[in-house]
């Protein structure tokens, strides 16, 4: 277990040492989204009865920031270690693939949650939200960051160059997070795009997370939990298989 704790500590220390980029920068980005979108749409859009647009937007932004940063943490750490070659420091010791996986996963969750808290605290300046179902909120925060952290491990193992990782981020992670109902309810979409959105697991994370705040959502939180839970377990299993086989790490 000491091996696992050490790897987790190393991963936490890594992002903490550069918290200017890893925490402050995403909080500012989220703040900009909030300022711009609430300025443009506050007077025009009301998604749920009695919920102002700015209030509607906050949970989506918090969750989006958490997900993107959870992904960024594991993927960028792994690709940097692979490209600089210091991944051998983790491959030579007797760390099991399970320890390796859990440490990278938990560090990603931690970074996601820290960024999410940061974004939430900053948005308190603009709008005060009451949290109706804190347990649902916590469950979706952990499962969502866990799933994206896992996806980051897969991307970090698979990518051999920074531009391959960037492609993964730009062509998969960004569309999934942006087209997930962060800025709108999918009920405002045409039927076709509503149906497409229902194939996006990130939609369920955002929707379930939002339910934790408002007690209303586009789909039932139980369904969201099921979808997110199944995706998380499936991706974790895939990651463990990759790690166990040594895919792209041990030739």
């Amino acid at each position, binding site marked *: 277990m*000491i*091996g696992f*704790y*050490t*790897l987790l*500590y*190393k991963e936490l*220390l*890594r992002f903490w*040492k*550069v918290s200017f980029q890893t925490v402050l920068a995403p909080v500012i980005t989220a703040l900009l989204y909030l300022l711009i979108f609430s300025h443009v749409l506050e007077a025009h859009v009301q998604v749920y009865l009695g919920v102002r647009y700015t209030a509607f937007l906050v949970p989506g932004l918090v969750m989006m920031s958490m997900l993107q940063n959870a992904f960024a943490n594991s993927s960028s750490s792994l690709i940097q*270690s692979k490209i*600089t*070659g*210091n991944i*051998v*420091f*983790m*491959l*030579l*010791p*007797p*760390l*099991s693939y399970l320890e390796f996986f859990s440490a990278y996963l938990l560090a990603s969750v931690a970074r996601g949650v820290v960024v999410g808290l940061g974004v939430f605290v900053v948005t308190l300046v603009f709008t005060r939200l009451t949290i109706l179902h804190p347990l649902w909120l916590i469950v979706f925060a952990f499962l969502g960051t866990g799933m994206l952290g896992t996806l980051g491990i897969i991307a970090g193992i698979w990518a051999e160059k920074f531009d391959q990782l960037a492609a993964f981020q730009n062509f998969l992670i960004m569309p999934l997070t942006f087209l997930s109902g962060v800025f709108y309810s999918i009920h405002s979409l045409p039927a076709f795009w509503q149906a497409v959105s229902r194939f996006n697991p990130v939609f369920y994370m955002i929707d379930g997370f939002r339910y934790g705040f408002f007690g209303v959502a586009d789909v039932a939180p139980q369904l969201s939990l099921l979808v997110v839970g199944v995706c998380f377990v499936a991706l974790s299993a895939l990651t463990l298989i990759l790690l166990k086989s*040594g895919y792209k790490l*041990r*030739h």
Partner: protein
Amino acid sequence: MGATPAILVRHLHKHFGSLHALQGVDLEVQQGEFFALLGPNGAGKTTLISILAGLTRASSGSAAVMGHDVVRDYRATRKALGVVPQELVYDPFFTVREGLRIQSGYFGLRRNDDWIDEVMANLDLLDKADRNMRTLSGGMKRRVLVAQALVHKPPVIILDEPTAGVDVELRQSLWAFIRKLNEGGHTIVLTTHYLEEAQALCNRVAMLKQGRVVALDSTANLLKSIAERHLCLRITPDTLPAGLAARVVSHIDGLHVLALDHYADMEGVLAQLREAGVCIQDMELTQPDLEDVFVQVMGAS
């Protein structure tokens, strides 16, 4: 010497696509040995080390460290093994001490500062302990790599070209430390292109060529395998008797190098010089070194 070999490799093959990097390597290194793994670039040295370290998987055959199979018993293998990789890698996020503490933790060691300090002291790293890895020179980074491989006091230590691009001072202090570890019972396996280092340090040598072991013997036996000695002469007048022409290896700037098949040939050479009335200014008899053996072995096979 323990009963279990420090390293045991049997019929090891490795294919990288169409490249047959290891073609049935058999090797046994006993505990306490100081062993050299020599060969030209691409001979398979690093591939063999990577398989022992679990960084690469063999296509077929088996490898064990201290009796532990490198695949089945990977945890025990890696605890028994300290590897200094050939590439000069480092983690730019951490200081030297942080890096060494983290590396200890990976091996399951929590409070390891006494040993870390001892290793740093032996490698002249103490004054760099709290410097970030990024700010260190290449030689210093190399020292840290050696220190990292030793945090868990592994019984078997593999150094993959540890002195490539390293200054004389570090080489000497590094070898003094490695020797001390070897005397303390650690098994040392080393690859290097500096054959005089291998000759001075190692009691046994394996030579690899294109994925095969082409020579495996004690350093002393390998040196004995070359009977030919060279006799270097400066003479006045600077003309060799015609009878010695067949022995000439080279003649540069008045230095005649003659080949002797045996020590006993010396007598005849001197007699011929005396008869010709040649006066010897300077004379040196050179021993064959590991480099001569290496050239012969690589040329022959």
